[in-house]
């Protein structure tokens, strides 16, 4: 749509031309080619906290105190200063403007982990409910590894005494509701074991092999909807209990209800005794779907994501595989499960080509974003962007089966792990994915600046993200990791460099459009 690169002529053209149908967001995004975070404030003095992320609507910056007990929330703003000289453009920023507080206003701090207990905030975990501006944060006691199995719990999985999910209204920091799990384990690294879709939250409990589905009400309540694992239908428990006690069968005409209803499921700590002789509901569904003989190992539900409000994608793996994403050694299975009919619709091994083809074509439907979130629907992926598709096809042509298994190892997706920033749009910029990407996982830090190059002619270098000042670091042996937080729509980014194995405070740089 824009013929020239000059921002003024683009604004004039925007007055006249309308974008092609359905492309208005992509056309508006092209202005980000002109507004880039080219200025950097290195090693800005900021509170010693671990900054987690910007919320997807750009309203808040979430961070946790260094002692992992408090949630600290900032509002991203913009600096303002005035210059009375004649030639203002030549002047650098005054030192008093080069502060953390110029860009971020501290809103409040909330203490979540109790001081007397040994609870700590899980600083890798944060979910945002955009429609109501709620945040979900988890606190847990330390994990215990010498677990002896009890009842339906499985051996080998560590557990925590108390794991609490807090639902917080980010506007003012009020804790609206909590959900507590006792003697359980949920893998919270990078939001892996929990998936948020619209107002439904799926929590995969590794120790009890149950998937809990909760609903987040507008009133701020966390409501149990169903738990899949021991029982697939709400009245299974009643049926099994009554069967064991040899009383008349209850009326089975009451069918499963829609997730919108306020269905209270029984707690899962007290399992009936005959459960040991029966396979848990979900495993029984799995085994009745596949014929035995494919694998003799027992597979437990490990990771889960929503595909839509009724369908879950569940990964069944051996215990160790459930905790990590390393797919090389073991086989795992992925199943599509319909919560309403409690049927497994489809079933794949984690190296299945069929599933990989679906993944290649419809990757965006695995990244289920809620309808409320506009920004998350435009994240570049290999299903919506030709450059990303060419990239993975070129890697695939070199090492096909290993590559497929590796790509399928990323399923089920971690929720809210990609940044919606337009600077990661592959149609606009080209950058080295090993050094920086939309994913918020920290990666190995580099002394060289990370270049963002324009995709379109004249393919020029637009801006660089450099982690340290020009002098560089003399000690090249210390291993450093870097993480990047990009604001969803402002030309503002934080880069945080941490030295592993040393107790040095992290170095924070602010990249902004000067």
């Amino acid at each position, binding site marked *: 749509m824009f013929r020239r690169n000059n921002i003024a002529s683009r604004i004039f053209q925007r007055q006249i031309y309308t974008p092609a149908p359905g492309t208005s967001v992509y056309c508006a995004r092209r202005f980000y080619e002109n507004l880039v975070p080219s200025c950097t404030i290195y090693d800005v003095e900021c509170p010693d906290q671990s900054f987690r992320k910007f919320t997807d609507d750009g309203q808040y910056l979430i961070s946790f105190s260094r002692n992992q007990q408090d949630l600290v929330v900032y509002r991203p703003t913009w600096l303002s200063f005035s210059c009375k000289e004649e030639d203002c453009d030549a002047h650098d920023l005054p030192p008093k403007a080069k502060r953390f507080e110029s860009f971020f206003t501290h809103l409040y701090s909330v203490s979540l982990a109790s001081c007397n207990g040994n609870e700590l905030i899980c600083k890798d975990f944060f979910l945002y409910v955009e429609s109501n501006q709620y945040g979900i944060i988890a606190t847990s006691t330390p994990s215990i590894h010498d677990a002896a199995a009890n009842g339906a719990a499985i051996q080998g999985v560590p557990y925590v005494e108390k794991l609490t999910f807090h639902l917080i209204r980010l506007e003012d920091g009020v804790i609206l509701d909590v959900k507590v799990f006792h003697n359980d384990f949920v893998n919270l690294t990078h939001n892996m074991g929990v998936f948020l879709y619209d107002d439904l939250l799926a929590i995969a409990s590794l120790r009890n092999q149950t998937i809990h589905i909760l609903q987040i009400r507008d009133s701020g309540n966390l409501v149990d909807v169903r738990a899949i694992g021991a029982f697939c239908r709400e009245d299974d428990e009643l049926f099994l209990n009554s069967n064991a006690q040899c009383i008349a069968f209850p009326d089975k005409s009451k069918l499963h209800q829609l997730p919108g209803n306020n269905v209270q499921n029984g707690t899962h700590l007290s399992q009936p005794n005959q459960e040991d002789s029966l396979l848990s509901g979900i495993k029984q569904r799995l085994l009745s779907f596949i014929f035995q*003989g494919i694998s003799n190992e027992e597979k437990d539900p490990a990771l889960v994501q929503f595909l839509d409000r009724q369908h879950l994608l569940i990964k069944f793996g051996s215990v160790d595989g459930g905790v990590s994403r390393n797919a090389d050694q073991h086989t795992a299975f992925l199943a599509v499960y319909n919560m309403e009919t409690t049927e497994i*619709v489809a079933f794949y091994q984690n190296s299945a080509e*069929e599933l990989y083809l*679906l993944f290649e074509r*419809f990757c965006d*439907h695995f990244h289920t974003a809620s309808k409320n979130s506009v920004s998350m629907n435009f994240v570049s992926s290999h299903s919506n962007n030709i450059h990303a598709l060419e990239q993975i096809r070129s890697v695939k042509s070199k090492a096909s089966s290993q590559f497929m298994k590796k790509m399928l190892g990323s399923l089920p997706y971690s929720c809210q792990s990609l940044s919606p920033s337009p600077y990661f749009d592959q149609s606009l910029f080209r950058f080295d994915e090993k050094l920086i990407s939309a994913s918020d996982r920290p990666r190995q830090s580099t002394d060289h600046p990370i270049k963002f190059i324009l995709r379109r002619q004249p393919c020029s270098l637009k801006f660089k993200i450099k982690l340290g000042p020009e002098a560089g670091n003399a000690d090249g042996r210390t291993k450093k990791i870097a993480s990047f937080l990009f604001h969803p729509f402002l030309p503002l980014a934080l880069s945080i460099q941490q030295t592993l194995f040393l107790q040095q405070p992290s170095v924070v740089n602010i990249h902004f459009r000067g």
Partner: protein
Amino acid sequence: MGSMLGDWPSFDPHNFSQLRPSDPSSPSRMTPATYHPTHSRTLPPPDQVITTEAKNILLRHIYQRTEEKDLRPKRAATENLIPEHGCKQQRASPY
């Protein structure tokens, strides 16, 4: 039908009858050429209701593949259950 709208036909001769030529000195009766369909194959069924499919395209594909597998004749349980991909034909892409 004059130069304004071209010589395009209509299915109803009464259409465009309200048009008056802007130039009153050259009155021409504006009856468009009338074409009628010779068959009713393309008419929608009278009770047709068009709605949006609730399932997204990924789930539609997954269900379709599952139904295809179900329609194929069942094999003995001892055989390898993962189907060979060579015998499957690529379904024509709907778009």
